């Protein structure tokens, strides 16, 4: 497929998990890709090599997007590396469990600040730098990887859910502001997906003993969501098939 030939994407948190599947899918459909990572350089190099194997340009850029200056640097270096960016996937994120105190009452102001920065402020910083040059492209796409947490608001993870809710609000507002510039802004909200982050979460919640894979049988359609399920929704939203779709959220959670 060559649906995304000539398009240039930045995927934050693209070295592992959902981000990695999104990078692979955009590249196999023809896009050149900047892969942002924070700590795992070897994972970033692996997926970059895979993208190059598909005949596409791949650039890896280290940045902690939750730090404003680093997010801005990432956006500027991405433009330099590929000439322009017309697909932005705000995927980088951290779970409340990783931060340490998932209950609202126990979470410290610093915990909450960190989650808001990673999801909401980072998305804003990247959009702020990238949207102006995206207006020059034939078409621009911004996809926010949110979470069903911003709809279900279950116990534990309230600070994470609040950060995702803020990120979604940013998306819905931006969609209206930039429609006139042919920039599409949409949200993909995954449910439980088989990734390291989700593995950590379900272990914390005591739902499994060894691995998230134990939950497959009781999951929708008898399987956990896979990163490829999310990549499929992202690819659809950025494609010509979705050229009349903006300001929408697709939940990919098996219902």
């Amino acid at each position, binding site marked *: 497929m060559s649906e995304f030939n000539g398009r240039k994407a930045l995927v934050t948190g693209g070295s592992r998990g959902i981000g990695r599947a999104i990078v692979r899918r955009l590249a196999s459909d023809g896009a050149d890709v900047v892969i942002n990572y924070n700590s795992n350089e070897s994972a970033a190099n692996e997926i970059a090599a895979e993208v190059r194997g598909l005949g596409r340009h791949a650039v890896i850029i280290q940045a902690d997007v939750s730090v404003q200056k680093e997010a801005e640097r990432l956006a500027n270096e991405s433009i330099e590396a590929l000439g322009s960016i017309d697909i932005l996937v705000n995927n980088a994120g951290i779970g409340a469990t990783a931060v340490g105190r998932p209950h609202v009452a126990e979470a410290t102001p610093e915990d909450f600040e960190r989650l808001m920065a990673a999801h909401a402020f980072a998305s804003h910083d990247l959009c702020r730098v990238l949207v102006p040059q995206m207006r020059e492209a034939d078409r621009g796409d911004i996809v926010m990887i949110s979470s069903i947490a911003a709809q279900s608001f279950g116990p534990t993870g309230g600070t994470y859910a609040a950060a995702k809710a803020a990120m979604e609000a940013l998306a819905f507002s931006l969609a*209206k502001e930039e429609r006139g510039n042919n920039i599409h802004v949409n949200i993909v909200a995954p449910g439980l997906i088989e990734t390291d982050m989700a593995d950590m979460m379900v272990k914390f919640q005591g739902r499994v003993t060894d691995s998230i894979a134990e939950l497959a049988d009781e999951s929708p359609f008898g399987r956990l969501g896979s990163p490829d399920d999310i990549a499929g*929704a992202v690819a*659809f939203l950025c494609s010509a*098939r979705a050229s*009349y*779709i903006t300001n929408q959220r697709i939940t990919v959670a098996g219902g």
Partner: protein
Amino acid sequence: MTNTLDGRAAFVSGGSRGIGRAIAIGLAAAGADVAINYSRDTAAAEDTVKEIEKLGQIGKAYQGNVDNFSECESMTSAAVGDLGEISILVNNAGIASRGSSVTDTDPNEIRKVIGVHVFGTHNLCHLLVPQMRGTDRGDVIMISSGATASLSGRGAPYNMAKSAQEAIAFTLAKEERPHGIRVNIVAPGLVETDMGKRLVRATRGVEDIRELDESSPFSRVCQPEDIADTVTFFCSQDGSYVTGQRLYVNGGGF
């Protein structure tokens, strides 16, 4: 290609014209055989079947009213006989309401509009979902409307019908998930169809719907193919973990 619908058979209600026609052709282009239902326009139905056949797929058309259960029985059993197991059902057939305020609406109009959208949808689900449980994967798609978000005045029968149709979808999605059946909703805004043209003439005095291009999202009125592409996405491998969802295809709304 991972997103092919090869080997699958679809039933599209109201498939002779407008959005239903584009859906039927879109599913055929992705590799499905397609049965369409139509109520009046035989020539249009035959034309849609020809387009399906041009794509190398089996196309069939069945006349009947979806709000009539025995006609649905005849149509669905003929479709299963001609195409084999139906694993995709698109509930697209619909009629518009007349633009009266709630207080001025004739009770019979409400019954009629709900008959097509709600009872028609239930009739086809009742008849086709059980056999769908035996297939590798089933998909039921409801073509709803942006009306379920706006619930504007002078549209009560249509608003009520589409809301109830969506309620069937959200419920059915939960019931049939263990059987591998996905149920999703595509909700278009204004689309360039005969119904859309009549709507803007009646409500806004616009004779040529394309006059609205400039003031529309992305500077164009939505086309039936935009809706068809979303239906095909839901039924494809890319949509395999998506169920119980509603997607508005309306360019972000007005």
